């Protein structure tokens, strides 16, 4: 399945590896931050709802 990369195999593979690593890392970091703030915001909203008894306007 692997294509014949010839004498440049190391270069091509490392280029792809670097790219994919960086992109995946960025994606994972972004998703983790997203999940974290979503959870934190939900907690804050819940605490606020409990205190005021008022219905929260949003559920973002």
């Amino acid at each position, binding site marked *: *399945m692997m*294509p*014949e*990369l*010839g*004498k*440049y*195999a190391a*270069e*091509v593979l*490392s*280029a*792809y590896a*670097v*790219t994919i690593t*960086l*992109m995946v890392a*960025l*994606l994972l970091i*972004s*998703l983790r*931050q*997203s999940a974290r*703030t*979503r959870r*934190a*915001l939900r907690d*804050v*909203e819940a605490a*606020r709802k409990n205190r005021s008894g008022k219905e929260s*306007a*949003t*559920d*973002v």
Partner: protein
Amino acid sequence: MSERLPKPTSLWEYANPRRFMALSGFLLPFVAVGTAAALLIGLIWGFFFTPDDYRQGSTVKIIYIHVPSAMVAINAWLMMLVASLIWLIRRHHVSALAAKAAAPVGATMTLIALATGAIWGQPMWGTWWAWDPRLTSFLVLFLFYLGYMALWAAIENDDTAAELTSVLCIVGSVFAVLSRYALVFWNQGLHQGASLSLDKEENVSDVFYWPLLFCLAGFVGFFILLILVRTRTEVRARRMKALQARERMA
């Protein structure tokens, strides 16, 4: 969203955080699927099913990541410039946050372009790095990204941060163009000319063209996807801060 919003009457209304959250939440899955598809098709096609170039051998396969990442890196800065202008002129908070969200993505893309370019340069030019204007201006662009992100991180008040980083982005753009010309003057380069121009004569040959287009679409999609995710994070963080501040005052 728990309740319906009235139909938007102008594009600017998406600058309302609630509308933005609704729309972006709706779009996210489609963008994600589209991006994944384009990236998979482009990369697999490019990596496995294209022939080697007669001059460059298999290294030509690097083009599928190098060129898209370079293009996204530049255009991310342009997008930040536009978003900064929108914030300064029309004061739409979401655009300021989108600019903030774009910076790390742009910086990563710059890094990818630099890394893949360097890896490509070794077999092609016999050196990892040359002080070629295009390469060098990319390095400078990377510095601009770093400074911009550091400024965002250093300022506590969010609105102040938005304004100051916008000013930096605008002034920085002018200086980025200036350094580009300075660099061209300073040193003649080694780097390839434009290869995707509309002028058919100069285009890369068709075998490489189509997978490259898919990859381009994939990288742009990846950029949009991350902007959406990260801007949503920023919007939420911002709202949380406002709520906490309100609670502290109450």
